[in-house]
C-alpha cells in the first residue's frame, strides 16, 4: 500500500512475532499482516482487548520494535527515515519520565531534542503545563507525581513540538474523570487545529465520543476498520417501544418483551414496528415512547469478540477488559 498525499499513516502487511517459551523456541505472533491507512486530520481509534497488538503497532511505528515484515510510513516518509519524527508526538503506555527533573525541566529537555530555541521552549512549556493542569506544580520533581499527573506530563511532552500527528497509547489510563475530560478536550482541540490523532484504547465510550474512524484488532489481526456510523449501522436496526397498561397477549412474532415495573419494554425489528404498534393499540395499551436502539461500540466490540453484550459471559470473560 503506497502512501497517498492525504494519508498521515500508512501500514502495509505489517507482521511481528515474539519468541517465547523455553530457549525462545516458540514463536508468538503479535501482528499478522496488518494493513491500515489513517487520513490527515482524522481522530483514529485503535481498539482491541489487552494483548491484541495495539501497543506493538505503536512501538513499531515509533521505531522501538522492529517488524518482521511489512512496511509503514508516517506523513509520507518510510519509518527508516527520521525526518518525520520532528513532526509527531508520542505518549507511550504507562509512561515514566526522568523523576529527578521538574515538569518544566523535562519539557525544556524535550524541546532541546526538537531544536527549539530557549524562548520558544519556555513559552511552549508554560502553555502546555497550563493546558494539562500542571502549572501549579511546574517546579515539583516528577518523582512526587501521581500516576495521573505523570500521564498529564506525558501528554504535554507529546505536544511540545506542536506535532502534525499525535500517537497516544492508552491516553486515558490512570486518569480520574477530570483528567479524562481534559484529555478528551485536548484531543478535540487538536482535531479542530487539523492535527491527526491516532490513539489506542480499550475504553470504548471514549473512542465513541472522539473518533472519526476506528479499527478493531483481535489477536494481532484487523477485524474491522471504518467510520463508527458505518460499523454500527450494519446490523438490522431495532426499535424500542415503551408501553403501559392494556393487554399485550397478542403481540406479533419476533417481539421481545421485558417488564419494567408497571410498564413494558418491547423490542422489535424496524420492519415490524407498524405491526407492533397496531397490536399494542388494539390491546388498549398506552404508548409512552418509540425510539431506535443504537448499537453501542461496546456492544459491537463484544459481539466481535464473541461475547454477548451485557451478559454474564461478557462480565465474566471479557467485559472487565473494557473497563480501565
Amino acid at each position, binding site marked *: 500500500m503506497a502512501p497517498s498525499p492525504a494519508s498521515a499513516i500508512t501500514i502495509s502487511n505489517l507482521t511481528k512475532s*515474539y519468541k517465547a517459551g523455553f530457549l525462545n523456541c516458540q514463536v508468538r505472533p503479535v501482528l499478522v499482516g496488518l494493513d491500515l491507512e489513517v487520513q490527515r486530520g482524522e481522530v483514529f481509534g485503535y481498539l482491541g482487548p489487552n494483548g491484541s497488538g495495539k501497543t506493538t503497532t505503536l512501538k513499531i511505528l*515509533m521505531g522501538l520494535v522492529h517488524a518482521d515484515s511489512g512496511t509503514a510510513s508516517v506523513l509520507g516518509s518510510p519509518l527508516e527515515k527520521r525526518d518525520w519524527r*520532528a513532526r*509527531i508526538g508520542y*505518549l507511550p503506555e504507562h509512561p*515514566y*519520565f526522568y523523576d529527578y527533573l521538574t515538569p518544566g525541566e523535562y519539557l525544556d529537555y524535550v524541546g532541546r531534542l526538537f531544536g527549539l530555541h530557549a524562548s520558544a521552549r519556555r513559552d511552549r512549556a508554560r502553555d502546555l503545563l497550563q493546558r494539562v493542569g500542571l502549572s501549579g506544580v511546574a517546579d515539583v520533581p516528577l518523582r512526587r507525581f501521581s500516576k495521573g499527573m505523570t500521564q498529564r506530563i506525558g501528554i504535554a511532552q*507529546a505536544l511540545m513540538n506542536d506535532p502534525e500527528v499525535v500517537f497516544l497509547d492508552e491516553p486515558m489510563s490512570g486518569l480520574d474523570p477530570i483528567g479524562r475530560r481534559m484529555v478528551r478536550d485536548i484531543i478535540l482541540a487538536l482535531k479542530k487545529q487539523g492535527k491527526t490523532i491516532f490513539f489506542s484504547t480499550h475504553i470504548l465510550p471514549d473512542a465513541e465520543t472522539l473518533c472519526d474512524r476506528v479499527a478493531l484488532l483481535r489477536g494481532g489481526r484487523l477485524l474491522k476498520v471504518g467510520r463508527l456510523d458505518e460499523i454500527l449501522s450494519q446490523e438490522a436496526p431495532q426499535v424500542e417501544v415503551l408501553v403501559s397498561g392494556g393487554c399485550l397477549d397478542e403481540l406479533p412474532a419476533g417481539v421481545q418483551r421485558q417488564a419494567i415495573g408497571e410498564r413494558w419494554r418491547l423490542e422489535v425489528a424496524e420492519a415490524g414496528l407498524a405491526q407492533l404498534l397496531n397490536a399494542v393499540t388494539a390491546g388498549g395499551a398506552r404508548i409512552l415512547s418509540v425510539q431506535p436502539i443504537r448499537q453501542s461500540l461496546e456492544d459491537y466490540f463484544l459481539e466481535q469478540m464473541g461475547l454477548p453484550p451485557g451478559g454474564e459471559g461478557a462480565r465474566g470473560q471479557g467485559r472487565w477488559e473494557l473497563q480501565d
Partner: protein
Amino acid sequence: MAANTYRETVRERVLYNLVFFAILMTLSGLLLGQLSIRQDEKIVKDIGLASMDVFGSLIAIFIGVGLVSKEIERRSLYPLLAKPLGRGEFLLGKFAGLGFTLLVNIGLMAVGLFLTLLVTHRSADLHLLIAIYGIYLGLVLTVAIALFFSALASSSLLASVWTVCLVMAGRYSEVIRNMRQVTEVPPWLAQALYLALPNFRNFDVKDRVVYGQAVAGAELVTITLYALIYSGVLLGAASLAFRSRDLT
C-alpha cells in the same frame, strides 16, 4: 543528552563519594605522618590515586550500566527515541555525560589530594596529574564497556556482572598472557585473549609517578589513542546492537 546525563548523576548524588574521599584524605594526611618514616608522602599519594581509581571505577561501572539498562527497564527512553534522537546518539550522549561527571569527580579529588599534600607540608608534585590522567583514561574505557554490555544485556544485573568481569580481566590481563606457563592453554589463545581484552595496565602509571620516574609524552599519546579507539569500537558495536534491539 550529555548535559542531562550529567545533571542526572549530580541529582542522583553520585558526587557524594567525594565526601568519603575527603574523609580518607584528611585521615591519611593527619595520621600517616605519625605511622611511617619518610614513606608517608608516598603513602598519601598512593591512597589518593588508588581512591580516585576505585571510586571512579565503581561509578563508571554501576552508574554506566544503569544509565541505559534503567532507562530500558523503566521505559523512560520510549518517548525520547520517538523524537529526532537516534539510538547511537542516545548512547553517545550517555557516554559523554558520564565521562564529564567522572572528569568533574576526579578533578575535585585531585584538588583534594593536592590540598592534603600542601596543608601537611608534603611535596605536591604536578607530575601526579599524569597518573590522574591515566586513571581517567581507564575510567573512560570502563564507561564504554558498561554501556556496551547494557546495550546488549537483558537486565542491569547481567550487564553489571559482565562489565565487572571484563574490567577485572582487563586489569589482570598479564595473568592471562602468562597462563600458558601454568596451564595447557595454547600460547596463541592466551596471546589472542591478551590482545583482545582491554588492557588497563597501560593506563597505570601511578607507581612510576609516585617514585618520580618519567613517563614519556609518546606513551601518553599512545595510551590516549588506545583508550579512544577501544572505546570507539565498543560504542560502535553497542550502537549497532542497540539499534537492532526490540524495546518490548
